[in-house]
């Protein structure tokens, strides 16, 4: 195995996440895309951890933290989406443009 194969995969996931982030209208789907990007990060981290044969397992630890943070973010995100849905009966992010001027 070489490092690059993981990196290219992660790059692809990240890029797909970007795509989803940009095209999805539903807020939940946007969140999904972000999760994709974060999973790309974890792949990176674990792969690098293995590559460096780090005695502190930094890569893995970092990945764990990223996963945790991602979970927290999802929680927050869903809460915000719910709140918006209550007010607007819609969870489409592109309808949010009250503030622009």
């Amino acid at each position, binding site marked *: 195995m070489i*490092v690059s194969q993981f*990196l290219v995969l992660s790059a692809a996931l*990240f890029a797909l*996440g970007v795509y989803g*982030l940009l095209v999805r209208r539903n*807020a939940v789907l*946007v969140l999904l895309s*972000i999760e994709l*990007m*974060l999973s*790309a*990060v974890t792949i*990176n*981290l674990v*792969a*690098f951890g293995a*590559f*460096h044969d*780090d005695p502190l397992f*930094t*890569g893995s*630890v*970092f990945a764990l*933290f*990223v996963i945790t*943070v991602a979970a*927290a*973010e999802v929680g*927050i*995100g869903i*809460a*915000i*989406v719910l*709140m*918006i849905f*209550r*007010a*607007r009966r819609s969870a489409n*992010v592109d309808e*949010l*443009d*009250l*503030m*622009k*001027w």
Partner: protein
Amino acid sequence: MIDYHGLAPEIVLAVTIAAVLLLDLVPIPKYWTAVAGLTGLFATVVPILTLGVLRDETITMLGGSYVVDDFALILKALFVATGFISLLLAVGFVESDRYYQSEFYFLLLASVLGAVVMASSRDLLTMFIGLELVTAPSFLLAGWRKGDARSNEAALKFFLVGVLSATILVFGMSLVYGATGEITFEGIRSVVAAADLGGEPVFVLGLLFIIVGFGFKVSAVPFHFWAPDTYEGAPIPVAAYLSVGSKAAGFVGLLAVCYLAFPDVRDIWGPAIWILAAASMTVGNLVALRQNDVVRLLGYSSVAHGGFILVPFAMAAVYDGAGLEEAFFATVTYLLIYAFMNLGAFAVVMAVADKTGESDVGSFAGLFGYAPGLATAVALFFFSLAGIPPLAGWFAKLVMFRAVLNDTGTWGAVLAAIAALNAVIAFYYYARVVKTAWMDPAPETLAVPEAAARPLAPSLGLAMGIAVVAVILVGIFPQLLAFFGDATKAVAFGF
């Protein structure tokens, strides 16, 4: 391995947070939770002071991941002070309606804790987690006015862009880790120096992604879009905190990473920051000219100030030694001064909004007539933001110019000229607010006697008072703050 004296500020703050949550369970008026929070923040200053006075040398923990030095302490103090004033601002807001109270204070304090942690972080992971702790509660705080569509929208925009930036940041961190095999700044720095990674694409990519990630936090153009929308929609105290505390946290991260981890590749990040600085100043100021909502105006103004704060970094590529120290000093000093004047500005906006029920520029009209003290405060803070002596802002601008002119080359001069022009442009929109407050007649729709009679919330008054004293005192004796900025130079020492 763990130095509890060194960790004392964080511990006190953590205890405070717990206390706030627990107090919520006790059947007493909710504002006691705020009092507890304020007391806790105040108490946090004690260990910071003792650390500042008693500590002989830099405390290093966890293999260099966590460090207590002058830089860390001063910024911790700044964060605590920012938190204190923001909390004071928030009391009035939270009390004004049936908002969740203790939760609000809890989140605010948690965010402050994140910033305090960031100040000491010396590795990528701790920095990332600290940053997340700063940011995540503020996503929630931005949406605190649940019934208000603008607040909701602010929260969602802030959240989405924030998470995206965090992702980019952590992706960059992963790449840097991959390229160096280290996450402590010390380690990264030695690897970078030894292996000459300046030409390694992955490393450069990681470095720039990290800068972009922090660029979002400091709302540097073009990563600034969220800021005005969020400030406008979020409750004003939250906007105040975001524009100061959260932004300062971003700068701390940027400073620490750039100076401690990547000093040897400053020819890469220096120019990048040059671009960000120039763009932020120009766009922020130009756009602010067009704003009618004062909070939004302050949002763009904070973008522009972010640019000004970045200016000293921009010349890092060509500096070494003294020049970098100057830049570091300038940035920290600017941050400290900016914190007070911007919080003050938000405080007066709140006060005016309390009186008139609105926050657009026009609502300031006639203020001089019915609330001359408040009008004076408006003038003090907005002109301080504009950098007019003898208000504190001038010194911030001065050290900024000073840092960038340390090198007499063309790029420095060009950036300085851009900054100078921007300082002039900025004056226009600040002056517009002051002009409205002082020179325009009160709008006919405003019931002047009632507005005049409406009292100022004591907490708001206290916050404003602190800021007024700071702005004037520091304006006349800048050494008061410059001393702190000076002390931080040591961080940049040695290259």
